[in-house]
C-alpha cells in the first residue's frame, strides 16, 4: 500500500491534472473495489433469492435463542467496531498517533470477536447436522448452501479485514502507513459492516421460526 502515497492526488497540484473527485488514488481504488465487491455480494444474494423462491420446502430453522440473539450481539459488535474505526480515522487525521493505534486495535479486536462468535454459530449448526449439501430438517438443501456460502464470504471479508487492520495498525504506529491508509482501511471496514446489514435480515431474520 505504500504506493498509495506517491499518487495521493495531493501535494502535486502543480504538476498534474486535478483528479475529478479530488481524492487520493488509494481511496478511489478502494471505492471501486467496494462497488465491485458489492456486485459480488449482490450476485450471491441473488442466487439465494432465486433458489429460495424456487424451493417450496424452504426451512426457517432459526430460534430467537440462541441464533437470533447471537446474531443481534454480533450485529452490535460489528456496529461498534464501525464506531471505533471512525474514531481511529478521526484520531489519525488529527495526528493523534497513539489514539489512532488504540482505536485501530479496538476495531480489530471487535472484528475478531465477531468472527469468533460467528464460528461458534457455525459450529453449532454443523453439530445440528447442517452442511453445504444437507438439511437435517428435511427441507430444501439450498439452506445450508446459501447460509454457509453467504456468511462464509462475509466471514472471509471480516477475517481479511482484521488482518488488514492489524497490519495497518502496526505499520501506522511505526510510521509506514499514514492517515490516508487508515481512512482507506476504514472504507473497507464500513463496507463489510454494511454488507452485514443486508446479510443479517436476509439470511437470519427471514429464516427465523
Amino acid at each position: 500500500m505504500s504506493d498509495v502515497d506517491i499518487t495521493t492526488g495531493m501535494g502535486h497540484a502543480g504538476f498534474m491534472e486535478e483528479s475529478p473527485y479530488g481524492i487520493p488514488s488509494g481511496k478511489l481504488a478502494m471505492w471501486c473495489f467496494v462497488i465491485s465487491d458489492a456486485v459480488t455480494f449482490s450476485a450471491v444474494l441473488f442466487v439465494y433469492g432465486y433458489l429460495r423462491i424456487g424451493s417450496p420446502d424452504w426451512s426457517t430453522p432459526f430460534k430467537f435463542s440462541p441464533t437470533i440473539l447471537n446474531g443481534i450481539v454480533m450485529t452490535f459488535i460489528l456496529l461498534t467496531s464501525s464506531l471505533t474505526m471512525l474514531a481511529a480515522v478521526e484520531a489519525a487525521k488529527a495526528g493523534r498517533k497513539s489514539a489512532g493505534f488504540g482505536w485501530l486495535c479496538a476495531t480489530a479486536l471487535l472484528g475478531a470477536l465477531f468472527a469468533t462468535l460467528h464460528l461458534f454459530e457455525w459450529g453449532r449448526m454443523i453439530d445440528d447436522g447442517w452442511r453445504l449439501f444437507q438439511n437435517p430438517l428435511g427441507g430444501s438443501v439450498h439452506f445450508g448452501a446459501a447460509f454457509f456460502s453467504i456468511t462464509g464470504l462475509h466471514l472471509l471479508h471480516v477475517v481479511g479485514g482484521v488482518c488488514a487492520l492489524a497490519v495497518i495498525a502496526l505499520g501506522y504506529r511505526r510510521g509506514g502507513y499514514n492517515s490516508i491508509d487508515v481512512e482507506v482501511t476504514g472504507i473497507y471496514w464500513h463496507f463489510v459492516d454494511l454488507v452485514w446489514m443486508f446479510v443479517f435480515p436476509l439470511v437470519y431474520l427471514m429464516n427465523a421460526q
Partner: protein
Amino acid sequence: MSEAAHQHGEPTGFIRKYIFSVDHKVIGLQYIGLGIVAVVIGMILSWLMRLHLGWSTLAIPGLEKLSPTGAPANVMTPEYYLSLMTMHGTLMVFFVLTNVPFAGFGNYFLPIQVGAPDMAFPRMNMMSFWVTFTAFLVLIAAFFVPGGPPLSGWTAYAPLSAVGESSGPGEGLGQTLWGLSIAIFCVAQLLGALNFIATTLDLRTKGMSLARMPFSTWAWFITSVIGLLAFAVLLPACILLVLDRVAGTSFFVPGGLVINDRMQPHTGGSPLLWQHLFWFFGHPEVYIAILPAIGIVSHILPAFLRKPLLGPRVLIGCLAAIGFLSYMVWGHHMFVSGMNPFSAILFSVPTLVITIPATIATLLWIGSVYGARIRFSCASLFCLGFISVFISGGISGFFLAQPSIDTYLHATYFVVAHFHFVMGVAAIFAMFAGIYFWLPKMVGRMMNETLGKIHFWLTFVGVYCIFMPMHYLGLAGNVRRYAAFTDDFLAPLVPVHQFITIAALITGAAQFIFLYNLVWSRFRGPKATENPWQATSLEWSTTSPPPFDNFGGRQLVVHQEPYLYGVEGSAGDYVMQTSPETVEAH
C-alpha cells in the same frame, strides 16, 4: 513527481527487470506475450477442429501423442473434438481477446498516453499479471489430467458442467480446473480494472483533461468500468459451480437427474441460474473484448488518414452508451433457454438499441475516410479491415437480436459467424493494427512492411472465406458444436466445411508470416525514431522504447487536443499534444 512515482527505482537484476517487474511496460509486454502463446495454441486447436469437421475420419499424424485416449490411431474422437472446442473458446475469449487489447496494450500505453510515469499501483499491477498467468497454467493443466480438458464449451452450461465425470470424459478434474482457472482470472481482471481506473482519473499530467485523452485511453477506461462489474459476477458464479462439483451443493443442478442409469444426489437447483449469472458477465465480456479494439483503431486511424476523426465526442459517447447498455441485454443469449418468453422482448429491444451507437461509430469511421489522403501501411490496412469486418459481424446482430428469428438461427453456424467476426476477427485486426503501429515504440524497431502487407491480404481475404460461408450454413440450419455432420440434412453441407477448413489452414499459416516478422523485426528491423508515424499523442513524445519512467524525468505538459492532423500553417502538418503552439480550428 516523477521521482516520487518511481521511488521504487529502476531495477537492475534480470528477475526484477523482466520477470517480476513492476514496470507497466514490461507487464504490458508480458500480457501480450501470454496472449501470443494463447492465440497460437488456440489457433492450432481450431486447425485440428476444422480438419475434423471437413474430414471426420482423417488421421492427423502425432495427435495420438497429444492425447492417447482423445485420438486413438491419430483420429480425433467426438468428445476430444468438444474438449478442443472448449479450450479454443476459453483461451481465445479470456486469454487473448481480454488479455491483449485490454490488459496488454492498456498496460503499456495507458500510463504513457496520460503522461504518467507508471500505473497508480505498480505492485498490484505485477500481481494481476502473475495471477492471470496462474489462471493460464491451471487451464492448460486440464490438457494433462485424466479425462482431458472439459467438453462443456466456454459457456460451461450446468448441469453438464456441474455433475462431474458421469456426464462425459473431461467433466471430471478437467472441468474443475476450468472453473478454478476462470475464478482466478476474474480476480486478476478485477485488480487490473481498479488500477486502470485509478491511473486514468488520478495520474493524468498537467493539461491532460479528460476531453484531451486519446480514444484508446477512453476505451480502456470504459472497459475497466465494465470489467469491474462483470467479473465481479463471474467470480462467485465460478466458485458456486466448483462447489457444486466438489462440495455436493446443488446451486445449478436440479433434482431427479439420471445419468448413465444412476440417480444423481443433487436436488432443487436451477440450470437457468447459471445461465443468468454467466451471461450477465458474458455479454459485457463481448464489449470488454471489442471496446479496446474500437479505441485502438480510432486512435491509429487518424495518424494515417492525416485528419481527425469526425465527431470525437460523439464517438466516446457511443463507447459509453455501448458499455452502459451491455448490462441490459444478457437475456438475448437465452431466448430459447426456457426462460419466460415475455422477457425475451425486454431483452430484445435494448439489444437492437445497441446497434444505434455501434452504427454511429461505424459511420463516423467511414465518413472520416472520405476526403483523406491515406498513408497505406500495415497498421492502416488493418484498421480499414477492422471497419469492414466490424460491419460484417455487426450486421448479423440484427438477426440474432430478434427472438422470432433466433428461434431458427440460435445455436447454428450463423451465431458462430456472428461472434467470430464481430468480437474475434475484429478484435484481432485491432491487435494487429496495434502491433504494427506500436511495435516501433515498444521495442524500438520498425516491422517489415512487405511481409506485413502479405500478411494483411492473406488474413483479410482469408477471414472472409472462413466466416462468410458460415452465415449461409447457419441459414441452412447447420448446428454448431457438432463433431461431425452425419444428419441427413447436414451431410450435403460438408463440402462447404471442407472449403472453410482449407481457408482456415491458409489463413492460419499466414499468421506465421506475422510471427516471423515479429521476431525478425525485434532483432533485425530498422531502428525506429521517436515518432515514425508522425503521430500526436504522448507516447510519441518519448524515446523508442521509452525509458524506465516513460519520459526520462521530464514532466510533460499537454496543450492540445489528441488528433491534430492536417493542420495548416504547422511545420509538419500535425501538432503534437505537447506542442505549445496555437492552433486554429480547421
